[in-house]
């Protein structure tokens, strides 16, 4: 005989919604210290595997490490370069993180960076020489944001209106964006004075982002830091941030508590796309100064992994993006001083994301 006790009915409070929103990921067991030791161990293991591959190729692992560190952090101006490369990676990573919090998968950082750079080039080359610098900077950034938002918003709209999987559409749109980039740089936008290279006309000097006194950094880095903080504040401390988190955690619960799930999902996609678009614009206006093929160098995919590694937490995502930027740059030094192909650093990047994939196991059916 069992006695039935009615389950106590509670009104959905923010904390209850919050627990619904938390993902069913089994964290590493053990205390904080044990966890830290495990994670450190996993990263050391990645480094050791990487060193072993380098050694097997006939390079001294310590020379390799030294070359990598000096071309990404310690060498003259190399830290500046790492920070500059981190701008598009960080912003494209936030473009993954915000939709991910709303339960959406944005694999389109690459395409959103590209359309941002295209928009910035179009605007910058057109008006850059005739208006004061700040006007063209703002116009290029706004154009980049708009282009990125449209590119991501397209996938978002298809998802909320037709139920087409956004992971798939964002991926496909990357290739479309890349073909547009190639078309523009090889044909209509090709610089007639460019020695036959597929490059657009360069931005006028005044339209390029100004350098920060005494460094190779430009004001793009300040804009990026501000945006990271704004995103952190928006997702952690605003009603919108909470609402998208609830939507991402449990759509049904979100809908029943009166949230406009579709608009929230679309807004997360638009915000993400705008950020990546700004990343593309800042990279163009501050570093590249003219459009060319390969302008993104798979940064968009690296960004996906950075956000994934940081579990879509904005501040950690920015740090992961910085780390990946350093790894990507360290390939240059390797190539020069050890003769190894620079793409060997892709192995290190893969291993670093592999480590947590191996170490955490999620619950739930396959």
């Amino acid at each position, binding site marked *: 005989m069992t006695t039935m006790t009615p389950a106590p009915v509670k009104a959905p409070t923010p904390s209850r919604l919050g627990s619904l929103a938390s993902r069913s990921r089994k964290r590493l067991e053990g205390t904080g210290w044990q966890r830290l030791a495990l994670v450190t161990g996993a990263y050391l293991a990645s480094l050791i595997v990487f060193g072993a591959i380098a050694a097997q190729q006939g390079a001294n692992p310590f020379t390799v490490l030294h070359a990598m560190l000096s071309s990404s952090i310690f060498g003259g101006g190399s830290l500046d370069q790492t920070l500059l490369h981190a701008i598009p990676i960080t912003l494209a990573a936030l473009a993954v993180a915000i939709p991910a919090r709303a339960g959406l998968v944005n*694999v389109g950082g690459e395409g959103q960076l590209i359309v941002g750079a295209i928009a910035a080039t179009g605007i910058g080359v057109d008006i850059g020489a005739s208006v004061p610098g700040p006007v063209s900077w703002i116009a290029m950034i706004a154009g980049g944001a708009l282009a990125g938002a449209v590119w991501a918003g397209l996938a978002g709209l298809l998802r909320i209106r*037709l139920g087409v999987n956004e*992971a798939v559409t964002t991926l496909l749109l990357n290739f479309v964006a890349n073909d547009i980039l190639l078309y523009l740089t090889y044909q209509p936008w090709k610089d007639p004075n460019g020695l036959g290279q597929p490059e657009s006309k360069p931005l006028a000097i005044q339209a390029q982002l100004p350098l920060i006194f005494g460094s190779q950094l430009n004001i793009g880095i300040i804009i990026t830091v501000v945006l990271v903080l704004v995103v952190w504040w928006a997702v952690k401390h605003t009603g919108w941030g909470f609402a998208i988190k609830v939507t991402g955690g449990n759509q049904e619960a979100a809908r029943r508590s009166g949230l406009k799930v579709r608009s929230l999902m679309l807004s997360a996609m638009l915000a993400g796309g705008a950020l990546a678009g700004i990343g593309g614009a800042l990279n163009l206006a501050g570093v590249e100064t003219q459009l060319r093929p390969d302008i993104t160098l798979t940064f968009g995919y690296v960004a*996906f992994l950075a956000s994934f590694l940081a579990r879509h937490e904005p501040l950690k995502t920015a740090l992961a993006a910085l780390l990946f930027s350093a790894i990507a740059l360290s390939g240059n030094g390797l190539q020069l001083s050890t003769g190894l192909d620079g793409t060997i650093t892709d192995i290190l990047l*893969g291993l670093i994301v*592999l480590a947590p994939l191996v170490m955490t196991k999620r619950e739930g059916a*396959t």
Partner: protein
Amino acid sequence: MNGLEETMIGGIEGGTAILLPALGELIGERAGVINLGTEGCMLVGALSAFAAASVTGSVVIGILAGLAGGAVCGLLHAWLTVIRRADQLASGLVIWFLALGVTSVYGANYISATAPTLAIINVPGLSKIPWVGPILFEHDALVYTGYLLVAVIWFVFYRTQLGLVLRATGERPEVVAAAGRRPAVIQIAAVTIGAALSGLGGAQLSIGYVGNWFNDMTSGYGFVAVAVVLFATWKPVRVLGGAYLFGMALAATSVLQAHGVSVNQYLLDAAPYLITLIALVTVGRRGSASAPEALSRALARTG
């Protein structure tokens, strides 16, 4: 020979390097696992095949090495996604980056090497059929393997118990488990076999269609293969059509240029992706509904 025939021949030859990985991806996705690392598995297969053929002088060993290289790559993805239950998209991208790095390091010695390549075999009788013969039956062995595999996969999917269990695993693994089968084993096998076919697709490039090895030589074919599976709404015969269509779009560019026709190459290159997008939109909910259910669930729970 006119431009249309050239485009179709090139489309089938190059399309095979899309068809083989797409069929592999189809098997994996039908079991509920997407592999964005298909591009990486193709690279590994392309290098393994080229290196083995170069060292041994045998294309047969090259083909086997391509299959094996792809399978190793698939085992890693299967271990991560099925056993460790890692995020499928992230695992795929990790595999792509690892493959880019590993093949650039170990492929450096083979960039200027030579290897025997697949011979063109004219199918007796069939290749004599006017017009159709030269287009369909004057190719290398891997092209014919592609034809056969479509038939074999269709048969296994829809006419055998194994196929039923595989498809059920992609829809409702818990039902398969309740019926006394082990969905994890089926998924691991499906992903590994699928990636082996990606490796074979890489081999079709390195010791077939292209005939040498260079870094990142698959240049997006693996991602196109993933797109083809979606375009085909997870049906084997449509995968064949999609792969050749995409192959022809890629081949048309060079053919048109050779004939002095001015064509916008990049618009043509973008066409396969746009067609896939439009197909996804027009099929809309119906298309998404035909996606294996476990796959949709896996894609929705990234994090």
